[in-house]
Structures are given as C-alpha cells and as structure tokens.
C-alpha cells in the first residue's frame, strides 16, 4: 500500500515522500518501513509502542490512534508531523 511520509522523515527514505509498504496493521507497515529505512520507526513510535505525541497517522483520512489498527492492501497511510513548538 501507499504510505505518505512527512518531511522530517525524508532523510530516512532518500527524500522519497511516497513509499510502498506491506502489512496487515499499522504496526506491521511501520516495521516493514523500518526494515528498509532503519531507525524510522523509533522516531514515530516510542519504546512502549505508542505513537509519539507530535505524530499523527491517518488511514484513508481517518486517524489511527493505535498501532494495532487493521489495514487492507488498498488502504493509504498518511503519517503527519503535527504542530510542535516554534
């Protein structure tokens, strides 16, 4: 499925903002991305498997609040770097 990433993560993907990933949950998709772009997952998910405070994940424009949310191969995942400081 297509995953759209925010600019703060671009250095992990060689500046690609749209990448393909596989997985049946948000967590599996992020782990798939982490295999190809090491370090990416820990920047958006903490060690307790919570999505970090200034990161939002949307699945087909609906916010996913937990990594366990199920995905279909046709879904589109959008990772957003939300408002954070100045």
């Amino acid at each position, binding site marked *: 499925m297509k995953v759209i990433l*925010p600019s*703060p*993560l671009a250095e992990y993907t060689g500046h690609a903002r749209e990448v393909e990933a596989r997985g049946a949950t948000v967590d599996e998709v992020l782990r798939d991305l982490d295999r190809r772009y*090491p*370090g990416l997952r*820990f*920047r*958006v*998910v*903490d*060690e*307790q*498997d*919570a999505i*970090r405070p*200034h*990161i939002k994940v949307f699945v087909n424009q609906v916010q996913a609040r937990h990594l366990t949310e199920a995905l279909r191969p046709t879904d589109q995942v959008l990772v957003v*770097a*939300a408002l*954070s*400081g100045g």
Partner: protein
Amino acid sequence: MVAIGVWVATRKGLFRLASDEARRAWRIEGPHFLGQVVNHAVADPRDGRTVVAAVRAGHLGPTVYRSTDGGTSWKESSRPPAFPKAAAGADAETVSHVFWLTPAAASEPGRWYAGTSPQALFVSGDGGDRWEGVRGFNEHPDRRRWIGSPQDAPPDGGTLHSINVDPADARHLYVGCSSGGVFETHDGGAHWAPLNRGCAADFLPDPDAEYGHDPHCLRVHPQTGDVYQQNHCGIYRLDRAARRWERIGRAMPQDVGDIGFPMVLHPRDARTLWVFPMDGGTVWPRTALGGHPAVYRSRDAGGSWERQDRGLPPEQAWFTVKRQSMCADTLDPAGVYFGTTSGEVWASTDEGASWSCIAMHLPHIYSVEASAGS
C-alpha cells in the same frame, strides 16, 4: 591546523568553532542537524575522531548520532537509548530526550554513558551505536523515590546529567539528577547510593534530606578526582572522606550569591574552578545578575572568589548560561568558553581574565564542549 574545536549544541542544530593554538581567529562550521534540538555533543578524547551528539527533532523521537571522522559525516545510532517495553498494566516510561553524554575512562575505549529525561542512565560499548539501560540505576527499587514524580521535575522534564568517571577507578561513577540529587556507584553501575549530605535543598522540609536535591552541574577533576558541584542551592566541594558536601559558595560576595547552572574545573589545577552566577532572587530570573554578566573564579578550591568580567557586556545583557554551556580546553593557559541562551559564544584565552565574543546570532545554546584537535 585546528588545535581546538568547540562543539556548540543548540536548540536548532549543531555547530563547531575551530581555531589554531593562538585561539584568536575562529571559524564556524555547520549547522549539522539544522532545525533539530541538540542537547549535547561531545568529542571522544580517547581517539580524537569520534563525536557523539544527542539529537531530537520537534516532531520525532529522541536519538543519538555519531561521527567517526570528526564531524564530517554522521550516522544514526542503530539502537538509541530507550526503556524496556513495560508489561501490560505496569508503569511505562519513555525517553523524552537524551540530555547528557560522557565518554568512559581511557581504559575503556568505545564505552560511553548517556543520561536522559526522565532520569535514567544508559551505556554503549561500541562508540555510541547501540545503547542499553544501566539496570542497577534504572531499575533500582528506590529510583522512583529518588527522582520524584513529574511534578517534582523542572519545566523541561527531569534529567540525569553530570555523568563523571573517577580518574582513579573506571567503575566509580557519579551522576546528577534534577531532581533527585547526586548518586554514585563503585561497581560500574550495579549498585548506587545517594551522595547529598551537607547539601542544601531549600525546597524540601528536611534540612538534611538524603535525596531529592537539585544538582545543576557536577564536575570531577580529571587528574585528582576532586568533586565539586554547582547546585540549585549553592556551590559545593565534596569532602570525600566524610562523604559530605561543604558549601564553598559561602565565600562568594553576598550581593552575588552562589546560584547558577554551569561549573568548570581547570584541566590541571584541581583548586581552580569557574562558575557563572545567576539571579536566584524573587521569582528566580536565572539571568546574568543585574544585566551585567560575570564569571567568578576561585584558585583556592572555593576559599575565595574573584570577579572576571573584562570584555563582557557592561549592562543590559540578560542571558542565561545553561549547565552544559561552559567548558575549558586543555591548552596552557587554559581557554574557558561559555555559550548563552541568546546564541553567543564567549571565550577567554587567559583563564578568565578577559573575554571576547567568538560567535553570535546562533540559536539558543544548550552546550559547549571543547576538544583538542577536532
């Protein structure tokens, strides 16, 4: 040829100032990690090549970058400091940011320590690539009592900082926790004990509390092992035999007081040290006193102090110097440096007698660390 490099970590990236041995002309390099918070960047004196930096972007989680070519290229840690995954229903902790970095003893090449927010200690055995928690501290049954709750922490979160290695014993470590106090281990981190007797904690009801203090900066002399600290409540020297702190800040001028964040020891003379007093009155502005910044130096282990402000702004300068933002180099005479929250770096090449501004217009400075030749 570069004789001295000064790594300047800021709220918006990392810079390096470089000069030859004369230390008159400085060039600035960077930024590295533009836009990211860099709490600390430290060069490894053991190999002269490695630099480790604690980095966090506003949106992204905390990490560590390392360079093995003096800062020309950087690689992210493959396992940054992180707590273990908590069992279901258990109290879970997450590292907010890596705050402090210290290379271990010369006898342990590649070994580094990191202090984080919240207060926890991590160690790397491979030059900062992979980090693991020091369980003896992080899982100590008294740790939560020592560091208190988030309500007891400073506004930016509690931190473990001031990781110091006894030059006579690589397994004897000191750390500072804000809040929590000073703690030491004699067995490389397996067992820990508070080390706060004699130190004031005006914000605690017990005048001789065992823990709960607020050390701002702890320094151990690299040759003699003498221990000093700039605390929230004064300047202290450790009476090692008695395991008790003596308030050497009492000898500071009364109208200046002994409140501040950083402290610097002379690289060769354990009786010479510098502090940067700040306004700890009323609501604690934590700015240069009266808008007239000054460094104070003691040459007799805190028995007396002299004001050193030649070259510093005479008025209307209201910056703060944070706990990691003051350091000395190892040249002779020793150079002393400090960075300000207003983005200036000031340097003295005559052990504090006179000062000049060697960088300005940088972002808010979090740390300043000198290194020889890199």
